[in-house]
């Protein structure tokens, strides 16, 4: 906080409401993807991408991570990277195995 008062305090609130509109637009796009006739796997990938975009906007702009010290940014990014592995890689592996077992059953 004390490391970036000028970067937050003097810009007013306009930027936050612009970001709010962007987040709503991304949300509406994600709802449209969820309503579409795409295959569930494609929907899941697109929605995870949309969620990642929204999460990044929230972390870097609402949570002000972009103004922080490089060490803190790295700490958070490594955590996000591990979370990403957990969310994207492990389900993909298990999901593929389960689907293959079902196909050959």
């Amino acid at each position, binding site marked *: *906080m*004390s*490391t970036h*008062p000028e970067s*937050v*305090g*003097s*810009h*007013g*609130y306009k930027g*936050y*409401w612009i*970001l*709010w509109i962007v*987040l*709503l637009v991304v*949300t509406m796009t*994600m*709802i449209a*993807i*969820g309503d579409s006739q795409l295959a*569930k796997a494609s*929907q*899941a990938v697109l*929605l*995870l991408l*949309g*969620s990642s975009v*929204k*999460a990044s906007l*929230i*972390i870097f*702009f*609402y*949570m*002000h991570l972009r103004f*922080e*010290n490089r*060490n*803190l940014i790295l*700490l*958070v990014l490594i*955590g*996000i990277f*591990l*979370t990403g592995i*957990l*969310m994207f890689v*492990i*389900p993909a592996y*298990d*999901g593929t195995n*389960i*689907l293959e077992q*079902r196909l050959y059953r």
Partner: protein
Amino acid sequence: MSNSTAAIAPPWTGTASPFGVPWQKLMMWVFIVTDALLFAGLLVAYGVVRVASPTWPEQSEAFDMNYITLMTFTLITSSATMACAVAAAMAGNKKHVTLFLWLTILGGFSFLGMQAYEWSHFIHEGARLTSNPWGVPQFSAAFFIITGFHGMHVTTGVTILLVVAIRAALGKYSAQGVENAGLYWHFVDLVWVFVFALFYLV
């Protein structure tokens, strides 16, 4: 410090954090990262259970998607008001800090009220932790565990915000305290982004 000591001394002398932030804020970030891993674990477990299940109910059969969208809209809006509260705290504008904090609390209570209604509606339809009318027990189990866990986080967030708002109204707040509360609140919004996408939309 002598020259010889300076040559072998580590860059961090113990007087300032290498992360450039107060320890409270650093610990909040560490907490957020670890809690994100916990939610990721829950969502992954849900994903594996769902893929392993031969059938899965269409969400539109069980939920009113317009209602869920309104819940999402409420939480995103409360995140925007929270960001404004932090900016006001940084600028030393006590009146705006109090105003935006109360707006955020209003958003939090609205979300919790809507979630309580959704739960009661779901239970009224026959959903339980181990069974439901849609024939896939894992469906309601995942719903109750994931949204319940998130709801507990929202409840905690609203409680923290109430304490900060009351202190702000009394003029006892610190910009650091408001920012730490804000970090937690944004995290709650961030988790909902993934819950909304993976549980309600896919």
